[in-house]
């Protein structure tokens, strides 16, 4: 890191230590690449190499890591290690929270797979009988009830399909689901992010869904 970068880093960390959230924008712009390197390292450790190529997911995790550093900035010693090295374990926790625990939200082995033929404009993979799964699995039923309370009908369908594709190991679920619903991959990622955020908010305020807080993609 050259002297100018070092001075900028110290200035932005000082601003964040003072609670200036606006500093997050230039901080991520200038040091996001270093944060991303740390995030990728954690993803590799966790075996989530599928996410290394998902630029949108990676950016979300970089933002999460930056916001975590923002909260901790007052504790950083500028004579010590770089912030992302100093906060390595915290960033690891952020990544684990962001991608969920080792288990994923939906277990494909528990799905009823019903051959329904090709989906219009989409893949020819078997579709999932969600109603049958809801009737049989109390956890999934609770999850679906929470999903039913947030987002539009289209967003709910996109979200379910996105999670199912992820659970099936699809390396790029946003592209797959996008082609099924006539959306761009970016749209799908935004919908999935929005649904997750809304679900997390719902879980925080509605005790009926508290049990979902530890669930894969929603774990806080």
């Amino acid at each position, binding site marked *: 890191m050259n002297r100018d970068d070092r001075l*900028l880093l110290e200035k932005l960390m000082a601003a964040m230590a003072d609670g*200036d959230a606006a500093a997050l924008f230039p901080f991520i*712009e*200038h040091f996001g690449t270093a944060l991303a390197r740390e995030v990728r390292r954690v993803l590799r450790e966790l075996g989530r190499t599928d996410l290394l190529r998902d630029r949108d997911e990676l950016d979300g995790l970089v933002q999460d890591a930056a916001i975590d550093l923002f909260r901790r900035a007052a504790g950083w010693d500028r004579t010590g290690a770089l912030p992302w090295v100093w906060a390595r374990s915290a960033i690891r926790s952020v990544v684990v929270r962001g991608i969920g625990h080792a288990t994923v939200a939906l277990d494909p082995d528990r799905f009823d797979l019903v051959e329904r033929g090709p989906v219009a404009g989409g893949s020819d993979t078997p579709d999932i009988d969600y109603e049958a799964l809801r009737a049989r699995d109390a956890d999934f039923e609770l999850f679906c009830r929470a999903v039913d309370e947030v987002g539009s009908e289209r967003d709910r369908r996109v979200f379910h399909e996105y999670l199912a594709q992820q659970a099936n190991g699809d390396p790029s679920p946003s592209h797959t689901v996008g082609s099924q619903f006539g959306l761009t991959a970016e749209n799908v990622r935004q919908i999935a992010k929005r649904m997750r955020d809304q679900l997390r908010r719902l879980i925080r305020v509605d005790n009926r869904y508290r049990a979902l807080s530890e669930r894969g993609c929603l774990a806080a």
Partner: protein
Amino acid sequence: MSTTMMMSAEGWATDVTRLCERLAERLAREGAPFPGAGAVALAVRGGAGVDRSTFAAQLGLDPHELALAENGALPYEQLPEAIRQLASSETRLDLDRLLGRG
């Protein structure tokens, strides 16, 4: 500090709207009545890369008014004109999404 929202050669291109949404959530948790507008005001200054008093001086604004804007105390329509102009010209900010106009 940078005075532009453009990326440096080794910069990280982040989803500015998403970052705003996260900051808006934080402002909302703190009780701000207009968290989306507050996040937009923060993003605009963040793009300029300067502290609040410097930015207020650059735009000829009252620092107190700028603080109110950034704290989410003002609706978007009541943000200083200069802030709204800068926000409108920042293509990475999806104002409709942030202000719930979509």
